[in-house]
């Protein structure tokens, strides 16, 4: 009898303990590490919109902004992992090695690294968006709307992500208008409004009447508005900054993915994976189309959007040639993800060299 009492007491304690743990486990805490300030109205801003979606879904979140991609990142990650966060999103390419290093030390914490490719431990997942799909749409619009046949493109840094965007944009523009030229200017910054505006101005002065950008601030669309040329919003809907110039924007929509992943941790279903979502999964969103675009173009863009989403159309469909005329993708084939991830050559029709 005595033994039975003790046994039942112990087992109920164990049960109670398990229940408590289960209850605690449901109270998932997510942390976000940002490269820039949440006030950049670009890259980091959109990640923070995603974080707010997680918060709205009933989870606790923390964020640290302006974290340098150095040993500082490791320190921040360790601190977040130590202070009871269950899942940590590291939202810049340069956090790749720190994320993997710290993940090894905290096997019970899940790590999600944006735009990277290293998953050295089972608790590291990677995710990125197929922004190039959005640029296929922008290229189609630019090629149709240009009158001077010169399209300006303000680029940030020569990495595959940016080169892929330039190529995807140019291929789409050439498809609707074989005479266009894409002029690239490298600003060597992700955001410096003054510099971006100057780069855009230089392109406009050189005859570009549509400006695309792969930098984050709204300075370029505002410069386009002042000069009376067209432009596209980057990362977020920039229409209100330049209502006449902005034809549409490509928005980064991280919210649904973040909510999904945090919920997966709460349900215990989280597992390592590599996610590369595009228009189809809603990670890349095309904002409303401007009424200055002719209705047949609008219809064409809507169809293209649907085809990209369904997979019927691929941004990189052969034949694709590089600048020297070498075949990159054969007719009828599409570029595979490996090729896209490491793309470091311009396609035919892009002017200039990639800075080395």
């Amino acid at each position, binding site marked *: 009898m005595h033994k039975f009492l003790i046994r039942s007491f112990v087992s109920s304690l164990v049960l109670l303990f398990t229940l408590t743990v289960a209850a605690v486990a449901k109270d998932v805490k997510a942390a976000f590490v940002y490269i*820039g*300030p*949440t*006030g*950049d*109205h670009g890259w980091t*801003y959109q990640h923070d919109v995603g974080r707010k979606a997680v918060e709205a879904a009933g989870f606790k979140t923390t964020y640290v902004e302006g974290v340098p991609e150095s040993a500082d990142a490791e320190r921040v990650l360790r601190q977040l992992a130590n202070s009871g966060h269950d899942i940590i999103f590291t939202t810049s390419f340069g956090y790749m090695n720190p994320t993997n290093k710290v993940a090894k030390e905290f096997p019970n914490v899940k790590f999600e690294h944006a735009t990277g490719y290293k998953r050295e431990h089972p608790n590291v997942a990677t995710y990125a968006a197929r922004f190039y799909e959005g640029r296929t749409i922008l290229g189609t619009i630019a090629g149709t709307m240009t009158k001077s046949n010169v399209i*300006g493109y303000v680029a940030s840094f020569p990495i595959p992500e940016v080169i892929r965007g330039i190529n995807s944009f140019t291929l789409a523009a050439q498809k609707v208008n074989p005479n266009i030229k894409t*002029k*690239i*200017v*490298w*600003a*060597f*910054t992700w*955001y*410096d*409004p*003054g*510099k*971006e*505006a*100057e*780069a855009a*101005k*230089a*392109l406009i*002065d*050189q005859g*570009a009447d549509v400006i695309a950008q792969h930098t984050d*601030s*709204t*300075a370029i669309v*505002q*410069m386009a508005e002042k000069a009376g040329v067209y432009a596209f919003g980057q990362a*977020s809907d920039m229409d*209100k*900054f*330049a209502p006449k110039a902005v034809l549409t924007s490509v928005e980064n929509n991280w919210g649904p993915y973040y909510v999904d992943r945090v919920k997966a941790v709460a349900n215990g279903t989280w597992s390592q994976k590599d996610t590369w979502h595009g228009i189809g999964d809603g990670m890349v969103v095309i904002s409303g189309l401007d009424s200055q675009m002719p209705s047949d173009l609008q219809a064409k863009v809507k169809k293209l959007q649907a085809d990209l989403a369904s997979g019927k159309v691929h941004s990189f469909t052969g034949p694709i040639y590089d600048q020297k005329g070498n075949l990159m993708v054969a007719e009828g084939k599409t570029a595979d993800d490996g090729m896209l991830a490491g793309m470091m050559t311009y396609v035919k029709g892009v*002017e*200039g*060299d990639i*800075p*080395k």
Partner: protein
Amino acid sequence: MIVDINFVGLIVASIMASAVPLILASCGELITERSGVLNLGVEGMMIIGAISGFALMTVTGSLIIAVFGAMLAGVLISTIFAFLTQTLITNHVATGLALTIFGIGISAMIGKNFVGIPGKEFPVLFEGLKDTIPLLSPILFGHSIVFYFAFALPFITSYFLKKTKIGLIVRAVGDSPEAASNQGINVRFVRYACILYGGAMCGLAGAYLSMIYTPQWIENMTGGRGWIALALVVFSTWNPIKILIGAIIFGGLTIIQFHMQAIGVRIPVQFLTALPYIVTIIVLVVISRDSRKIRLSTPSSLGKSFHKDN
């Protein structure tokens, strides 16, 4: 490519526009340094000016209040610096650096509510004359009042320092505060005034960025221009006219390198982006190589604290 004469005018105009914040901040800092005070807080004061101008413009809707408010904000934050370095006799370098860090932080905090709001259009002068004279029209006409003020400022500053009594007092305080004090000049008062003036000009430079050049608020939007302005003061050997030359060269090369990229000049882009920094320093060092003149214009007691009772 056919070089269109109006195209050259457009480029020159954008070069001048990009030089404006550098000229304003440098000329302000020049007066501060000429009085013997080294304020490394230029970047911080500029960013405070940028957020204050933008915030006031958004809240009040008045551009005049916004511009003067930005200058006032520069004055207020530089008052902290003045109080610390002149009244509490702290180290200039450390206090200035702290001011920059403080400015960047507090501007980001205030700016949280102003992200993503489009700016207002700033009125330009002589818009109607824009197509009258080839080449010169785009350079001379159709700019904001701040633009014209910035290009007059180096000449005003030069005249002030060389020809006016107050300018002489400022220089005396910067060269030998002891001697100036013995002459009955209130060194601390003069230095306070010069620091506050520097703050006002840096505030205006920041407001130009957030209200006229790229009308919007973005954290850290000064992007290191405050440090360039500081460097210009030193490399120009405290001469306002050379500041003007340096600012135009710096702004010019920044813009011309974009044009060279767009034209497709085959020079490594990394070299082109480094060019403004290298060339500005080389040119200013070359035009300022006269050591006698450098001795004359360098404030001898720059960065040294002054205690009246020693």
